[in-house]
């Protein structure tokens, strides 16, 4: 088998991180080297994007190597429509993050850039693994760079925040590890079976697992993913981690790390345990809706802009979870596009807040006001991003939320429009807290002397926001470019779920690796 592009995507950043060691003494060289590596990764990922065949739900760009043969553990990577866009999001945001930290990170630059590169490799690994063991390894590796990024370059309360982040995530993932082992063992108890963590094999075996066992395995996976999302009431690590992380860390955390959770829900919960997923869909959707409203309400009373954005994440990710467990084509497609949207808008919001913080060294809403006069360009960018986060039609947020709401409204699995009725209020609340915050920060009189002399955006800052805005508008106006990529995969999931509900066998419908298809 030839080397897949995915392997390059994973190993170029790792190699880059090692190369940084040789230029570690010169921060400027480190920055340029890091940027060069991430841009290269992005270019390679474009190859993935343009050669992707959107007409099939099968896995593509597959590469397989035996790794630990005694337990049928392999280096097995590939993508389908669900992972493609998330990989693209990762490769797109990482260079932006590095540019955003150009001036703000001056201490231990080589370590910072190195951590970002390892993080990128880990994230791509998570989104492309087709072996549960490999997936788990990448899932855990991500903790370490993030732990250091928050702990070394974070704010005042960073140590508390980073330990909380680490332990919280680990609670879920360790249980997931037991579940993964259990699945592998279950495979070995079947006639002619052997221990395996191969996703494709397990997909085929999963329907035979007794329902009672499926429930707790589903629970172990779901717990791990829900903590990462984070779903109410498991979200308490998020505001701390986001608030304390440096800007770049927050952007990656909100932009991509949270999507690991929702991606896992689709890839592992929905695909491996359709039956259990259907059974627990009302519960998960309820928690999602609570998250939407709770996150929005709490955002409204925040005094710190960054904390406000952090809580708005809880609200937005609630939409994604609702869409996933709505289990219709529209709602699932909406969820996926909403993951991308949230990555772009919230990532950009954190960038904007970071720019404010670099200038004023405060993030309190009361310390600002009247910025429109001194920073017109900044205010414009901020407005577009804020509106995208609210879900203004014509911008990306609207597309995702609309699809999720429409899809879940018709959902057979949820069986009641009540979820959507409550969720829709979240959109209104979002408008409240965002607009109100924007108004207090940007409009009105300049109340503080220091704000009179604030500099408007530099070329570098404009340059890093522009590409994000481009996609915010693109998805808002013509989402089909992106929706079409994932349609086949989502359609397949929906078909499987429908079959499960009707009690039809569905195994032959599952996504395959083309080479293995008979």
């Amino acid at each position, binding site marked *: 088998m030839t080397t897949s592009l995915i392997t390059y995507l994973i190993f170029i950043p790792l190699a880059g991180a090692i190369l940084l060691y040789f230029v570690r003494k010169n921060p400027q060289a480190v920055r340029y080297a890091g940027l060069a590596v991430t841009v290269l990764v992005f270019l390679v990922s474009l190859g993935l994007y343009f050669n992707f065949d959107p007409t099939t739900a099968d896995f593509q760009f597959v590469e397989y190597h035996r*790794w*630990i*043969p*005694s337990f049928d553990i392999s280096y097995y990577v590939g993508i389908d429509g669900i992972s493609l866009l998330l990989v693209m999001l990762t490769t797109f945001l990482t260079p932006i993050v590095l540019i955003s930290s150009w001036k703000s990170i001056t201490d231990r630059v080589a370590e910072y850039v190195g951590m970002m590169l390892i993080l990128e490799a880990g994230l791509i690994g998570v989104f492309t693994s087709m072996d549960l063991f490999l997936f788990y390894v990448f899932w855990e590796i991500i903790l370490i760079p993030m*732990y250091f990024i928050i702990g*070394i370059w974070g704010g005042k309360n960073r140590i508390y925040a980073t330990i909380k982040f*680490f332990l919280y995530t680990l609670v879920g993932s360790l249980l997931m590890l037991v579940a993964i082992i259990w699945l592998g063992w279950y495979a070995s108890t079947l006639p002619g079976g052997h221990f395996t963590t191969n996703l494709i094999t397990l997909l085929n075996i999963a329907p035979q697992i007794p329902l009672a066992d499926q429930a707790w395995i589903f629970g172990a996976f779901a717990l791990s993913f829900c903590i990462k999302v984070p779903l109410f009431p498991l979200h308490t690590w998020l505001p701390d981690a986001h608030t304390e992380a440096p800007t770049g860390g927050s952007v990656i955390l909100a932009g991509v790390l949270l999507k690991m959770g929702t991606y896992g829900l689709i890839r592992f919960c929905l695909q491996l345990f359709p039956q259990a997923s259907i059974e627990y869909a009302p519960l998960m959707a309820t928690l999602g809706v609570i998250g939407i409203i709770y996150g929005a309400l709490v955002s409204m009373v925040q005094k710190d802009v960054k904390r406000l954005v952090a809580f708005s994440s809880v609200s937005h990710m609630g939409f994604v979870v609702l869409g996933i467990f709505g289990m219709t084509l529209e709602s699932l497609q909406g969820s996926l596009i909403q993951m991308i949207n949230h990555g772009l808008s919230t990532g950009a919001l954190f960038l904007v807040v970071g720019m404010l913080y670099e200038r004023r060294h405060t993030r309190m809403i009361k310390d600002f006001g009247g910025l429109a006069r001194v920073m017109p360009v900044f205010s414009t960018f901020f407005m577009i991003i804020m509106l995208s986060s609210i879900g203004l039609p014509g911008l990306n947020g609207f597309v995702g939320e609309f699809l999720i709401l429409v899809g879940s409204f018709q959902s057979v699995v949820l069986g009641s429009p009540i979820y959507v009725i409550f969720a829709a209020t979240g959109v209104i609340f979002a408008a409240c807290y965002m607009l109100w915050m924007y108004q207090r920060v940007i409009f009105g009189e300049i109340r503080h002397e220091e704000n009179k002399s604030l500099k408007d955006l530099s070329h570098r800052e404009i340059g890093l926001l522009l590409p994000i805005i481009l996609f915010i508008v693109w998805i808002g106006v013509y989402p089909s470019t992106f929706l079409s990529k994932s349609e086949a995969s989502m359609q397949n999931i929906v078909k499987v779920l429908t079959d499960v509900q009707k009690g039809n066998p569905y195994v032959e419908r599952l996504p395959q690796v083309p080479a293995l298809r008979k």
Partner: protein
Amino acid sequence: MNNVLSDLSATAPITATVIVSLLLVVVHSFTREFKTGLYWMTLGGILIGIYLGVVTFHHTGYAFNNMLMIGGFASLMDIFFLSAAGFTILLSRPYLERTGGHYGEYYPMILFATIGMMTLATATDLIMTFVGLEVMSVTLYVLAGWTRKVKESNEAALKYFLLGAFATGFLLYGIALIYGASGTTNLVGISENMEALKGNVIFIAGCGLLLIGLAFKVAAVPFHLWVPDVYDGSPTSVSAFMSTGAKGAAFAALALIFSVKFQFMDSQVNIVIALLAVISMVLGNVVAIAQTSIKRMLAYSSIAHAGYMLIGMVAGTEIGVSAILFYIVAYMLTNLGAFGVVSIFEKENRKNLEIEDYAGLARRRPVLAALMAVFMFSLAGIPPLAGFFGKYYLFLAAVESGYTWLAIVGVAASLVSVYYYLRVVVVMYFHDQSSEELVLLPASSMVSLGLSAAGIFLFGVLPSLLINTFRNLF
């Protein structure tokens, strides 16, 4: 005579180590100030021993009238403990030169202890088990009190000796009972009569006492009370050796006697061991959180790790035993590394032993801090390090033999452990430095740490290198 010669060559690694250590004693008694020579001779002897271990690997069987195992498992054990001794020697020299106590006798003592470990781990006769255990223990009692002007070191030696002697009593009594029930002390002989012995109360009592004796050496709760004081008081290089070699050897003996080869296990013993595992993991990890001294923290963590390894014993399957073996390797590399960093950082008169003293080490000595972080993450079981795969393998063995609940307890316990391992990293990386004092990085110690870290990465990423060998042993 011929027979003796062939037996001696079959157990070549042990024979070679004995010869080298005796040679060291002689050389030292004639040349009082020849420590550099002793150091290199010891390392050379260890390398020869490891080489002989590799050579004898394919000649499996028994030697000395079924007293010792040879080849395969035995060779592997020889290689393990000789490597641990090698790492320890590399760490010890700069450490002892700095803290006082660099006497020439140290080198043969380490080798004597290693001989004890190799014998204990490969004994197939309970008498040899006892001899091996005593050779190992008695030298370790002496080594614990090596820095004889330090009060804590003396205390450690005395405590270890008194409690160790007590535990040996249990072991010996157990052997006596087993002999009474079966009429032989030979494991091969006993396992042939296993059917008749099942249900024999005297035999079961003997096994229980044997278990207690060995559980003392692996530092499982409730036989752990000596561990914190002894690890804390002993010279750090000796603690490193004790916590890895002695624990590993006792585990190898446990696995050999109770699981694989001779299967002294039945369901009742299994429940007892499962209980030991649970309380070791829980108590070790919970108490470790409260420690402020790094050596005491590592001591309690060592108790917890004994608990993890006992999970493999409970599983009792072939996978369980190879999981224990993998864990022994991973734990040896990691703990030798962790104690190695402590030994480099420690100052005269037991200074710099608090976790808080490590504040800001990442700025003063980035490489040392990075190595320590690797060791801590490996102990915590974060991929892609060897500690992670070790835990994965143990939990897999548990699930596979129907002890999923034990795996869940293990997972919960290791979650607790992450907190205190991370605290070391937090202090090193996130706290401001407390002193500008220079930390010297002796080349010899750094070689040892570098090898440990390399091994941790290698076996973490490519565990197949080891497990394929382990799984074909029995």
